[in-house]
């Protein structure tokens, strides 16, 4: 059985926290640039240009892209033929967050309790999602989530009779209500099916897919393309100040569900939809 030391997990999470917050992934940066060429609104073009320039400054200085360096969401996929030595995995992850947010001059935005609201001053705890997979590799994705966009996300338990039209209507309604608040151009992450919490986790996972890559299920790929067009004809535009670049992508993940249910979650990602990944 392969052994991974918990101190290596801490080190990797520390590095990924800084990288995710300071460097926009190439696919998203490229997409912002492509949209700038197509955007017909002059103000929209100027804003997209500013966002690309901001990304370049942030990467060059290793400064945060956005002052809201988020609540730290961590996806862990852990090979079942793997053993962790040296301590509990979640303590190791939180220690990495603590160090990354300190060393990277990242903002600490987490409060200890949703009602008492005292800042924990080190951005812990992270929100960690685990998945056990075959093999002996530990893969970690750090996806800091700012709440300008997180607050605009919604979940709905539809009736099966509402079908695909109900799903479309709910997604478009969510994007419309979000309007300028989540820092468009956005990425629309959608989870359909499973149970309530399964759809929510899928919608967040959908944000991590390389932008512009369609779903491998043809009926979902067609739905993604249709919805992207509908979203981009709403007129919200870059920074919500008008134009046709409202979203860079609509990403949908589905899962089998119950005969009586049709859960739909929409998680909105901002123009940077930050994430960074690594393996041990």
């Amino acid at each position, binding site marked *: 059985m392969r052994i991974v030391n918990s101190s290596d997990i801490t080190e990797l999470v520390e590095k990924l926290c800084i990288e995710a917050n300071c460097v926009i992934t190439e696919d998203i940066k490229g997409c912002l640039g492509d949209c700038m060429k197509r955007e017909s609104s002059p103000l929209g073009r100027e804003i997209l240009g*500013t966002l690309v320039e901001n990304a370049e400054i942030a990467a060059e200085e290793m*400064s*945060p*892209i*956005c*002052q809201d360096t988020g609540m730290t969401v961590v996806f862990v996929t852990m090979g079942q033929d793997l053993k962790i030595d040296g301590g509990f995995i979640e303590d190791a992850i939180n220690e990495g967050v603590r160090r990354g947010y300190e060393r990277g001059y990242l*903002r600490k*935005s987490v409060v200890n309790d949703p009602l008492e609201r005292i800042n924990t001053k080190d951005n812990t705890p992270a929100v960690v999602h685990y998945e056990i997979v075959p093999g002996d590799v530990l893969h970690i994705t750090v996806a800091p989530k700012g709440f300008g966009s997180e607050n605009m996300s919604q979940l709905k338990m539809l009736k099966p009779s509402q079908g695909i039209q109900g799903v479309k209507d709910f997604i478009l309604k969510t994007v419309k209500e979000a309007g300028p608040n989540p820092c468009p151009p956005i990425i629309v992450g959608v989870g359909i099916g499973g149970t309530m919490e399964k759809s929510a986790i899928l919608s967040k996972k959908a944000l991590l897919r390389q932008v512009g890559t369609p779903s491998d299920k043809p009926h979902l790929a067609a739905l993604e393309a249709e919805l992207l067009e509908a979203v981009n004809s709403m007129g919200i535009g870059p*920074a919500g100040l008008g134009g046709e670049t409202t979203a860079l992508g609509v990403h949908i993940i589905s899962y089998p569900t119950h005969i009586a249910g049709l859960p739909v979650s929409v998680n909105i990602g*901002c123009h940077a939809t930050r994430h960074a990944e690594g393996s041990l």
Partner: protein
Amino acid sequence: MNEKRIELSTPLDSEIVKSLKTGDMVYISGTIYTARDAAHKKLCELIDAGEPMPFDFRGAVVFYAGPCPAKPGRPIGSVGPTTSGRMDLYSPKLIENGLRFMIGKGLRGEEVTKAIIEYNGVYFAAIGGAAALMARRVISSEIVAFEELGTEAVRRLVVKDMPVIVAIDSKGNDIYK
């Protein structure tokens, strides 16, 4: 977008303010103050209690922002606008008490627009997420109130050419509507 480039210095001249139109790109230089959720709540509590304000915000520009920590040798870390709607509950009271200009992002409620019209104010939108770029437009930063709030403390910033867009002008025209 109007084609002219408008440069403004604080304190903002009330006649120039009247001439600003929704969609104008404006570059602000001078002194602005950061304040967001917690500072707004505290300022309103002081007003309700009849206490003096911890800094003079009459005619001031307030930026809804909580910056990242400054790296050594820098005045401030990344700094950009937070969602303005969360300040809607407090803004009319602050405007009645002297605040005139707000920089944030996103939609405002009707009460805020009414107060802007009544007191000749302006709501500016900054580009959400362009925080590394905006930090470069900040020359100095100093905490002037509520230090215990950390990133939410009130900071006096001296800025040069901070890029913003007129979102609600003094007549109440709203770029988001």
